[in-house]
């Protein structure tokens, strides 16, 4: 399924392609920067990184409108960057600072900002899927024409909340698109060990909704599939299950070197790196020159330098701030 070329999406202008590429670059370089900062001990907690999954994050989010909403998972950094949550506030949140998008009450696994169309990420596997359905119900009831893009991983397709929420979304024709990032592993467990269904998109048949398996390392293929599913949802025809085949280059979390994966397997997927694939495509198409890409990388570095400086300058919350924000007044 996963190739090495790009399936050109219809109707994308060069400037839109460039914007998508830059966003992918920002996702990757954000994750790489966070990795080094984390190794240096400059941020607390744990991190679940998404290097290698830029095409799913950016492909899905590029097909959304500003007032749409996404839900995310314990691996949310790239979703947040792709959705346009300011990197300053994301970095500050990872640094546990007051100017973080959750004011230091969320952390890596809960980044998000509804003002930018992303609920705080849900770190219980599958836990965000019912919330996505509910948010979609509100959109439908309020007749806004908006949709929810609901991210979850392959592992989530085995938990009850997936079944309940996809089914209820199907029977009510809710405007939600289920974007399953199949990165082949739930932590260290390979997906084929925990389901007999070879293609997770086939599970859609159980709910009477369309299901499609998409090359999740081809940003334009993801974009086109999300746009189509999104239009269907906006038009009142209900949800779609998209299986986006991808791969995470990093381990499950900070403590995981990924020994359960073969070198060949990793090499296979590295050869299909969504970022370099798109970069090659854009240069071959004459959309971007090598010099322009180098400039772009330099500008992303500067943006991340600024984000780190912002995060470091931001004050820590007061210890007793932990007592606030439990209840709304």
């Amino acid at each position, binding site marked *: 399924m996963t190739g090495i070329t790009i399936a050109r999406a219809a109707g994308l202008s060069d400037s839109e392609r460039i914007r998508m590429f830059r966003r992918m670059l920002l996702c990757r370089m954000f994750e790489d920067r966070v990795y080094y900062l984390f190794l240096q001990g400059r941020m607390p907690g744990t991190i679940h990184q998404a290097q290698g999954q830029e095409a799913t994050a950016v492909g899905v989010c590029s097909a959304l409108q500003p007032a749409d*909403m996404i839900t995310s998972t314990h691996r949310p950094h790239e979703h947040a960057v792709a959705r346009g949550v300011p990197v300053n506030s994301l970095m500050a949140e990872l640094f546990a600072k007051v100017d*973080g*998008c*959750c*004011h*230091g*009450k*969320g952390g890596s696994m*809960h980044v*998000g*900002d*509804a*003002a930018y169309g992303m*609920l*705080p990420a*849900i770190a*219980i596997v599958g*836990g*965000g*899927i*019912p*919330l*996505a*359905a*509910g*948010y*979609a*119900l*509100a*959109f439908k*009831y*309020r007749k806004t024409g908006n949709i929810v893009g609901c991210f979850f991983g392959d592992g989530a397709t085995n938990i*009850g*909340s997936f079944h*309940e*929420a996809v*089914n*209820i979304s199907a*029977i*009510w024709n809710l405007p939600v698109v289920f974007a399953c990032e199949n990165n082949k592993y739930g932590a260290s467990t390979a997906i084929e060990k925990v389901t007999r269904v070879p293609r997770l998109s086939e599970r859609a048949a159980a709910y009477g909704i369309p299901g499609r398996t998409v090359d999740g390392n081809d940003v334009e293929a993801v974009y086109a599939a999300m746009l189509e599913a999104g239009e269907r949802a906006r038009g009142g025809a209900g949800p779609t299950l998209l299986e986006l085949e991808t791969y995470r280059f990093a381990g499950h979390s900070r403590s995981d070197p990924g020994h359960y994966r073969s070198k060949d397997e990793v090499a296979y997927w590295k050869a299909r790196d969504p970022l370099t694939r798109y970069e090659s495509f854009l240069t071959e198409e004459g959309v971007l020159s090598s010099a322009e890409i180098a400039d772009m990388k330099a500008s992303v570095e500067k943006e991340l330098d600024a984000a780190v400086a912002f995060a470091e300058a931001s004050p820590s919350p007061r210890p007793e701030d932990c007592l*606030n*924000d*439990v*209840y*709304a*007044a």
Partner: protein
Amino acid sequence: MSMPLSAAPENKTERRLTMVEALREALREEMRRDDRVILLGEDIGVPGGFGGAFTVTLGLEQEFGHERVLDTPISEAAIAGVAAGAALGGLIPVADVQYGDFLFLAMDQLANQAAKMRYMSGGKLSVPMVFRAPVGATTRGAQHGQSLEAFLMHVPGLKVACPSNPYDGKGLLKSAIRDPNPVIFFEHKLLYGSKGARKEAGGIELVVHVPEEEYLIPLGQAKVVRPGSQVTIVANLLMVHRSLQAAKALEADGIDAEVIDVRTLVPLDEETIFASVRKTGRLIIVEEDNLTGGWGAEVAARVADACIGSLEGPIRRVAAPDTPVPFAPVMENYYIPSVEKILAAVNDVL
């Protein structure tokens, strides 16, 4: 039962409602007042159906339609999660489970999602929803009769209401719907007053004055339902009625008991309880929940902490034993705190 439980005086010419009627009226009024209010649950709006397990929503779909009265699949996690998501999306869902025991199926969505969204967002989001759940042992055995207040009370971010009578039920439910937080709303099956085929065997006759004009009962205000001077009895739901019966029996023995209906467990009205204990010097807590880790333990601990100098005897909890709810009526009667057990506890500490 003709205990003066309502704030309004008894008056035969005024209208009197059962709990079911009062709750239904609260839903209807709030749905008329605010079109963001929607209902979600199993069997709640099926034409020709029964309006939820205990008829609370009967007929509401006729007025508000199926856009606002949503019959769900048997999917408790989805019911709770969809309610929370819809609340985040600008609606005010009132969801329910048919039996409180099913809350366990919805606990991730309630305890991890609905309760924490405000906190995890750093105070940017709120989750205005109500989740109704019938509790109480009613010869349905171990999986349709538990009392679950303590489980939910333990979750920061949730509020917990537990009315003992129709007047409070209506006023509290309206407040819960207007509250910007997730509120778990416990209803006792023996207090519903459901009629016809849905009538609850063993249910107590409880029809009280509920005024036509609007009123709200704030979350976090306990009520002294019987003033007294010698011992304080704190209870909720059905146990308020058993405590009042006990107080009446005590009166015959010349013992003057004060009975407090907590009405909500989160927020807990400590001041009303503390003031009473400082006056009486003695405290009995009556709950239908299992003894260990029940809400009574929390009340006891807080009173011990704040009122130790006023206590003239040990704090006693009258609760269900630490067993599942039994089926056989003779065992169930033994299990549920009785008037006799309340009297024994009072006599023990006096």
